[in-house]
């Protein structure tokens, strides 16, 4: 990758990657480090983009997703990436901003469900793009998204009900 290619990729995708990493890890500092490491890997050809395997955006999201999962494993070595069990424990909305409550609910999802919902809802990737970025089967992505939405609906029930009343 040339310097100009790298500059274009960085300018075009840094915000998507940073937002995803920040939502995935819950830390601005870690997110910055991950995006930095992601582009350093690309620059040093530690990972090589091939247009046959999808868009540049999917490729870079795939790289940062792997870095984020590695970081999560480092922080919590026994963390289950994909849990079948539900995480339906409604959050307590007292004294918190709505955005903060949503962040708390999303952070409570198992990592693979979390990444699927982040990519679908916030970055508006198609199912195919999510499958490409995460190296997963389309059916697995659909299943994770379905379970993530169910879990979030349950956890955010107090807010959804309040919203319905307004």
């Amino acid at each position, binding site marked *: 990758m040339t*310097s100009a290619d*790298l*500059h274009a990729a*960085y300018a075009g995708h*840094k*915000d998507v*990657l*940073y*937002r995803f990493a*920040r*939502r995935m890890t819950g830390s*601005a500092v870690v997110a*910055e480090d991950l*995006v*930095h490491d992601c*582009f*350093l890997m690309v*620059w040093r050809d530690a990972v090589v983009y091939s247009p046959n395997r999808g868009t540049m955006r999917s490729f870079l999201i795939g790289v940062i997703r792997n870095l984020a999962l590695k970081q999560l494993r480092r922080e919590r070595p026994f963390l289950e990436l994909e849990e079948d069990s539900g995480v339906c424990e409604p959050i307590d909305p007292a004294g918190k901003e*709505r*955005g*903060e409550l*949503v*962040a708390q609910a*999303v952070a409570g999802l198992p990592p693979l469900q979390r990444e699927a*919902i982040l990519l679908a*809802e*916030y970055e508006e990737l198609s199912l195919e793009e999510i499958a490409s970025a995460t190296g997963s089967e389309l059916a697995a992505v659909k299943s994770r998204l379905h379970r993530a*939405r169910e879990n*979030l*609906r349950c956890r*955010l029930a107090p*807010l*959804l009900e309040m*919203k*319905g009343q307004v």
Partner: protein
Amino acid sequence: MEPSDDQKLSKLLKEWQVPGAPPSLDRRVMAWRERWWKILLTGSIRVPVPLGAALAVILLLMSVALVRKPAPSRADSTVNLVDFRPVDDPQVRIIRGQL
């Protein structure tokens, strides 16, 4: 589940806003991209403690070995015979001692 449930959830999820990449990230990425050669002057590398300690000991031993002057050995000493003059008429006097 109603069809609008997903829309309601999506709308609620969007209330969690996160800013884009901070300027500090730009500075970090641009720094190594444009001035990568400066790592030769200002870069740093991580060295595991055991390896670092071993290197320090080796360097210390080498410097001690270099600083210490080697002890003169008889085998290595040379004799210069340039000014040597044999005695012309040696008058050897034999002294007999009494035992």
